[in-house]
Every structure is written in structure tokens, then in C-alpha cells.
């Protein structure tokens, strides 16, 4: 047995808090409103129209009288057409800010801290979503650049 084994050390888990912030551009945010007091069946109608147009959607949110979702910017025209019978608004020039933070859902209050940080920059957020290792925020392209810069600066270390 070698009594002088060097205590080789291996680094493991990434540090807490934000590890990386990236921006993906080229999206359109769609809001559909006025679906009435019991909008569940109307929501299915909206989704059916979008699916029949061959449009893939992300970040679906059910709002009190309607819904919202994100689509690729090159499908914005197709969405406009598909939803011409609904009260729909298509906002082009949207970006997704991906805030990478390992195990984000288990770090108490981290999601709220990131969202608060973004709101404090007076940037309108269209959507917030999360995965096990990242938070996703949808906003206009200029806002996305500002948020990336802001979050890279503060990093939000968790202690």
C-alpha cells in the first residue's frame, strides 16, 4: 500500500446561484383575450386553430379570460391568420433570457429573487418559466440584453 498517496482533489457541484445567462432571439409573444367567463372550451379552439396551422408553441399560460404563448417569429404571420377570428395580439421581436442555475427549484427564494431583480429594472416580462436547472424569461429584445447584463453583474449568489 502506498502510504503517500497525494490527496488529489476533484471539484464537483457547480456553485449556487446564477451560473450563466444567455439570450435567444427570434420569437413572437401571442396574447388571446376575451374568451368569456368560462374560457376552457374556447382555449381548446384557439389551440386547435394554431395546431392546424402547423405552429409549435411554447410557454402556454392560461389567463383569466384567455391565454398567451410564444411562437417562433417566422410563424407570427401564420398565427395571425390562424387566430383572425379571435381577439389576438401578436408581439414580434421577443427574446428568451435563459438564467442557468443548478437545482434552481430547490434553492429557496431564488426564483423570486431573480424575478424581482428583473422587475426592478422596469422591464415588462411577457412570461416566466422554469426547468430543473434554469429560469426562462420572455421579453422584448432590448429588455433581454439589459437583463442579461444586469444578471451577469449581480449573479445572485445564494448563501
Amino acid at each position, binding site marked *: 500500500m502506498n502510504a503517500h498517496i497525494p490527496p488529489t482533489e476533484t471539484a464537483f457541484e457547480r456553485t449556487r446561484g446564477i451560473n450563466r445567462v444567455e439570450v435567444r432571439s427570434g420569437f413572437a409573444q401571442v396574447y388571446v383575450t376575451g374568451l368569456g367567463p368560462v374560457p376552457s372550451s374556447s382555449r*381548446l379552439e384557439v389551440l*386547435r386553430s394554431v395546431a392546424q396551422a402547423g405552429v*409549435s408553441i411554447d410557454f402556454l399560460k392560461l389567463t383569466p379570460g384567455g391565454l398567451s404563448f410564444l411562437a417562433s417569429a417566422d410563424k407570427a404571420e401564420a398565427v395571425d391568420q390562424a387566430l383572425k377570428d379571435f381577439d389576438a395580439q401578436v408581439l414580434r421581436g421577443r427574446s428568451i433570457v435563459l438564467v442557468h442555475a443548478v437545482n434552481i427549484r430547490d434553492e*429557496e427564494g431564488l426564483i423570486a429573487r431573480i*424575478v424581482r431583480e428583473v422587475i426592478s429594472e422596469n422591464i415588462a416580462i411577457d412570461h416566466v418559466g422554469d426547468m430543473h436547472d434554469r429560469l426562462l424569461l420572455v421579453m422584448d429584445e432590448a429588455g433581454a440584453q439589459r437583463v442579461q447584463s444586469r444578471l451577469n453583474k449581480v449573479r445572485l449568489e445564494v448563501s
Partner: protein
Amino acid sequence: MNRIKVMKFGGTSVASSESRLAAALRVISAKEQGFRPVVVVSAIGRRGAPYATDTLISTLREIDANVDPEPRELDLLVACGEILSAVIFTHTLKTLGHAAESFRGGQAGIRTDGVYGNARIVRIVKTSLIKSLEAGRIPVVCGFQGTFIPYEGAPGGELTTLGRGGSDTTAAAIGAALGAESVEIFTDVDGVKTADPDAVREAPTLRKVTYDEVAEIAHLGAKVVHPRAAEIAMAYGIPLWVKNTFSDDEGTEIVSRDSFPGRRVTGVTHTGKLVYLQFDLSAAPSDADRTALESCIFETMARYGVNLFMLDISPNSTGFAVPRSQYHVVENVLDGLVIPLGDAEKRVYLFQIGQVASREVETQAALLGGIGEVRRIPAQLTEGCTMVSLVGHEYMQQPGLFLRVLESLAEGNIPALQTSDSDFSLSVLIPESESNRAVKLLHDRFGLSGVE
């Protein structure tokens, strides 16, 4: 040093002398096949068992339920469960004729960042484990714990526990440090299944899943292997398996996306006892006021460490789900909260949780009436919710997927309260009472019974 295999045994695998014997025989079998096993153990038994973590914690709570234990003391206490388990397992191996020695996390060289109750592993000094292996012994390491050394030469160090899924993380980290051929997580099910067998009895065991899928599945309900362990295994390219201590099923191999393209839909999970809150911000006359109110909500949630799910930020409302265990915090701090805004024209906003105003809210409204106009920010409250999720790969981006999911639930008369999605999952918030039925409906709709 080669042919190292890390074998981690969960609570049920070390719960009784019979189960420990089954686990020990698996270790001996690996040794006889030419591997050098390194064992990681959890505390003995699950919730309610005499030495399980929650039982140990309850001994402190019984003294005075209103006094929270110090995190440092709590860590020292709960770490006893794994220490006991490791010593008993080591002795079991010895009685079977195999030299073994137990290690606390710190003795095994696991160094952490010093956060009590939720520490992260920063490095492993593998000297003691290598010495043990070279001496022909089987190291048995306490899962879920490590030591924080505040400065070089500090005596002893502070024992810290690794939080949820800590033993899986220990196993993966040791596997990475020692360059193990594989890390095997032994539990009491055959591997990662397409759904919780309580909801879908015939749910098949998946033979392969990707690290990303298993991380998402684990976060969304299936407690087979913790995402932190998957992440370490992925970063170091260590093959990770989930196997059953009590059956010869081959288990589930967790692999990288390069070696397995994934499948359309991998599984349906359900998780969480959640409360959903939707704040109506339409009383705010300007974007500035709405932003200030949103900021106040999230500032408060951050300050009190509340975990948020299913966030929805819309022009006139903000909503999110919180764990039921944290709802009392939200109610305590937000119901009746007063936010004054405006310079020349004072506006006073008063938060109200639920349709019916509490006595505190009514009292605040009466007292504030003399100051100026009081605008209420009501939050619609939906208790008893859970999250049902579809997990998979690129299929999540297919046109019509949301439609198929929501149609399936509508056909089953299950209301969808909110949705969220990511690259690997699509989740729907539903009434908790409908969770098993929703899982079964989606499992059937996406043909998961035939998945391998």
C-alpha cells in the same frame, strides 16, 4: 485503480437484517465479479422508522414544537442515521467474511461549502478511500453528509448535510472522484418507470433515459435518483444505473443524449401539494404601479425563501403556485399588506388573499380609509392543487401537443388551472384529488404502456 463500482443503497434497502443481507450479497457478488465496490448508504428505513431522518428530527420537535432547532445541531443529529446505517452494514459484510470499514462523509474526504442542511460538495480528498480499497477492504460511506473546513488547518471541520437526494449525490461524487466504472443506485423499484405505479399499475420500466430526462422527471415527482447526482454523473461521464435491491431486473441506465436519442414521451409524473395564487393587479392605474406591486410580491417571496412554481406574469395579473408547507408564510406576510404609492396623489394598495377578506384586511381597510383611496389587490386562492407533467425530448415542441394534453384532461372532466413547459416537460396544474386519474389518462393517451 480500476474496476471500481459505487453501490448506493437507499433507506428500504438497509431497513432490516433481511434487506441488508440482500444488499450485502449484491456487494459481494460485485466483488466476486472482479469489481472493487464502494458502498454508500442512506439512513435506515423511511418515514416513521426508528432511525429514519424524520424520526430523529421529531425527537427535537417533541421538546418544544415552537422552537426551531439550530441548523448546525440538526445536521449533527440527522447525520447519525447514516452513521448508524454504515456501521451496521460494515459489520454485516464482516460477518459474511468480507473486510469492510465505515466512513463518515468527512472521513471519506467529502468537503462541502458549509451550508447546513443543504450543502454542496466542493471537492473530495480521496486518500482514505483509496487506502481502504488498496488494503482490500470495502469502504462503506455515510451518504448525505460532508465536512466544511473553514480554513486550512482548521481542526475537525463542521459536519454539514447535503439536503434532498444527498445520498445519491454522495454516490455520484465518489464515483466521479474515483473514476468508477459505474454508479448503481439501489432502491425498492425496478428502475425509472413511465409513471407512478400507484397511478398506473402496469407502468413499464424504462431501460434507458437521458440525464436531462431523469433530472426533469426527478424534479417533477419521481424520486428515483436526484438530479444533482445525475448532473455529476453527466459531467464526469460516469454510467449511472437505477436498480432494485430485491429483484434481478436489469434496471434503468441513465445515459447522455449522444448515446441515446430519447423518445417522444418518456413518462408522466405528478408532484407536490400546492396552493395557487393569482393576484389581480387591474386596480393599479399605471405600469409603474403594477411594476411596483409585482416587485413587492416577489421581494417578499424572496425574503421569506418561498419556492415558486408555475409563474404567470400577465399585463393585469401575476400568479404562482407555492408548496402547501410554505403557504402559511405567504398568507402571513401578504394578507393585509399595505403598499403606499405615488408622490402628489397618494394611492394605498391593500393585499387580500382569497375571496373573503380576513379580519386583518377589513381592519386595515377601515384604518386606512381616512388617509386616501384604498385599492384592493385581491388574490384568487386555489388550494389542493398538484402538478401533472409529461416528460420527453424534442416532442415537447411538436405542434398540437398542448392541445392533446388539455383535450385529454377536458375529456376526463379534469380542470386545468395553469400550465408551464420547458425543453423537456409540459406541466399542468390540476386539483390534487384528480392526480392519479390525470396521470392514467395521459399515460394512456400517449401510449406509454408500450414504451421500453
